[in-house]
C-alpha cells in the first residue's frame, strides 16, 4: 500500500490525558499498519467546538479554524487536513466553506490572522479520518490488513451527528449511513445495519449543561443496542463515545437500568483486528471495559 501523508488535526480531547486520548492512541496504531503518516499541525488550537458559539460569536469562532488551516497550509503544505474528532472536522470544514462563500468573513479572518503573522489561502481540503479510510483506503483495503478477524462480535455502529451531518460521507444518507457497518464487517465482526439509533443525537455538548435531557437520549441509544443483541457500540466521534460510555452509571442509578455496554472507536476495532495489542489499541482507556475485544486481543 502506497504511503499516505496527511496534515493531522487531533483536537483538544485527543491529547494525552484528555477524554479521548484512547482515540488518538488507537488511531496512531491503526495508521501505523495502514502506512499512513499523520503530520500534526504545529501549534494547532481549539476549534471552538459546537458550544463555543455562545461565547465567541461568528468571526472569532471561525477565526480559530482559520488559524489552524493557515498553520497547516504553512507547515504541511500540499497535505489535506485530517481530523479524527467530529466537531474539529465540522468546525474546520464549515469555516473553510463559509470563507469560500462569504468574502466579508474571509477578509475579517485574514485581517485577524495578520495580527499573528499568518495568512489564509483556504485551499486545503478538510477531511475526516473516516473519509480517508473509506475513500483512500477502501473497505477492501481495510480488510486486507486484518490478521485477527473480530469473529463472533456483534457491534452496533453508532455514527452520531456531526460525522454525519451536515456534511456527511459522500454517497451515504444522513438518516441511515452504512459506512460504519461496512467498516465493522470489514474487520470480521457482525454489524447491525438496522440499528435505529445510529444517527440519534447523544446531546453533544449539552451533556454538561442539560444532563437529564442528554442522558434520556443516551439511554435510548444504549437500549436499542441491547435490543439488537449488540456486544458493544462503535463510534467515530469522541463526544459520542464519551457521552454514551461514561454516563452509564448515572443512567443506571436514575432509571434502574443495568447498562454495561462498552463503547469503542472504529480505530480500536481496526487496530485489534490488525493484531495490535490491547494496550496499543488503547483498550485500557475504556471506562466500561470492552472485555470481548480484550480477550480477542490477547489471543
Amino acid at each position, binding site marked *: 500500500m502506497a504511503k499516505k501523508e496527511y496534515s493531522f488535526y487531533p483536537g483538544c480531547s485527543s491529547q494525552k490525558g484528555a477524554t479521548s486520548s*484512547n482515540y488518538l492512541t488507537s488511531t496512531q496504531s491503526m495508521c501505523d499498519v495502514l502506512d499512513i503518516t499523520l503530520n500534526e499541525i504545529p501549534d494547532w488550537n481549539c476549534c471552538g467546538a459546537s458550544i463555543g458559539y455562545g461565547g465567541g460569536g461568528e468571526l472569532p469562532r471561525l477565526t480559530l479554524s482559520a488559524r489552524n488551516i493557515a498553520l497547516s497550509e504553512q507547515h504541511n503544505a500540499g497535505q489535506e487536513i485530517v481530523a479524527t474528532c467530529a466537531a474539529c472536522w465540522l468546525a474546520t470544514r464549515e469555516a473553510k466553506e463559509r470563507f469560500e462563500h462569504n468574502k466579508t468573513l474571509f477578509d475579517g479572518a485574514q485581517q485577524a490572522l495578520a495580527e499573528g503573522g499568518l495568512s489564509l489561502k483556504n485551499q486545503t481540503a478538510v477531511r475526516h479520518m473516516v473519509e480517508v479510510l473509506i475513500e483512500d483506503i477502501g473497505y477492501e483495503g481495510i480488510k486486507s490488513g486484518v490478521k485477527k478477524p473480530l469473529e463472533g462480535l456483534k457491534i452496533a455502529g453508532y455514527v452520531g451527528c456531526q460525522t454525519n451531518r451536515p456534511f456527511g460521507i459522500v454517497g451515504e444518507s444522513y438518516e441511515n449511513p452504512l459506512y460504519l457497518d461496512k467498516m465493522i464487517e470489514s474487520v470480521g465482526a457482525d454489524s447491525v445495519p438496522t440499528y435505529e439509533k445510529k444517527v440519534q443525537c447523544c446531546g453533544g455538548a449539552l451533556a454538561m449543561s442539560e444532563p437529564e435531557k442528554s442522558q434520556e437520549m443516551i439511554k435510548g441509544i444504549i437500549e436499542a443496542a441491547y435490543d439488537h443483541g449488540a456486544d458493544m457500540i462503535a463510534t467515530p466521534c469522541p463526544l459520542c463515545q464519551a457521552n454514551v460510555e461514561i454516563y452509564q452509571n448515572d443512567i443506571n442509578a436514575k432509571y434502574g437500568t443495568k447498562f454495561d455496554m462498552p463503547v469503542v472507536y472504529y480505530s480500536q476495532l481496526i487496530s485489534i483486528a490488525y493484531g495490535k495489542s490491547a494496550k496499543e489499541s488503547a483498550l485500557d482507556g475504556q*471506562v466500561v471495559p470492552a472485555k470481548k475485544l480484550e480477550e480477542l486481543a490477547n489471543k
Partner: protein
Amino acid sequence: MSDLNTAMAAKYRANFLKEVEAVVEEGETVKMCMQCGVCAGSCPLGKHWAHPPQEIFMMIRAGKRDEVLKSDSMWMCTSCYNCIVRCPRGVQITHVMHGLAYYAKRLGVVPEGQPTQQVSQLFWDNLMKGGRVNELKLGLSIYFKDGFGDGIKNAMANQKLGMNMMKAGRMSPMEFLSGHTIKDNAGFQKIIKKAQEIEDAKFDGAAK
C-alpha cells in the same frame, strides 16, 4: 450591553426579520422558511423547546423580538444538524439558533442562569486562556458555575465518574497545574482580539 439592545430595538423597530438578517449568523436564510415544521419535528430535544425553530421563525416575522431573544429555546440546540439537512428551503437552522443565542447574550437578555449559556461562556473563556481546552478546569468550572456549594455537591456526585476517567487515563490531575496550551499564545490572543474587534464593529455598525 443593554445599550446595544435599546439601540437595535430602536433602529429596526417592528422589523425584527430585518434585524435578524443584518446581525444574526446566517440570519439571511430565515426569510426562506415556509413553515413546514420539519425542523421542529427533527430536533432531538424538540419537546424541551418552548418555541421550536419553525415557530421562532414565525415569531421573527411577527416581530416578537423580546419573546424570541429572551427565550431559552435556542439554547436547547445540541448542534446535531438534523434540521439543517432536512430543511427543504436551505434555512441554516442550527447556525441561526447559535446566532440568535449569541445575539441574545450580546444584548444581555438571556434568562438568568441559563445553563447552556453559562457552559458555553465557560468553554469559550477556557479555550481563550491557552488556545486549547483544559477539560479538567472546564469540568470544574462547570460544577462550580452556580457557586461554591453547588460546586462541591456536583463534584461529589460526579466523583465516581471522574475517578473512572482518571483510571482510564482520560482525565489527568496534571491538567490542573499545567495543562495543554499552545506555544504561540501571544499571537493567538492577538488574532482573536482582532477578530473580536471586527465582530463588535459589525454590531456597532448595525445599531447605528
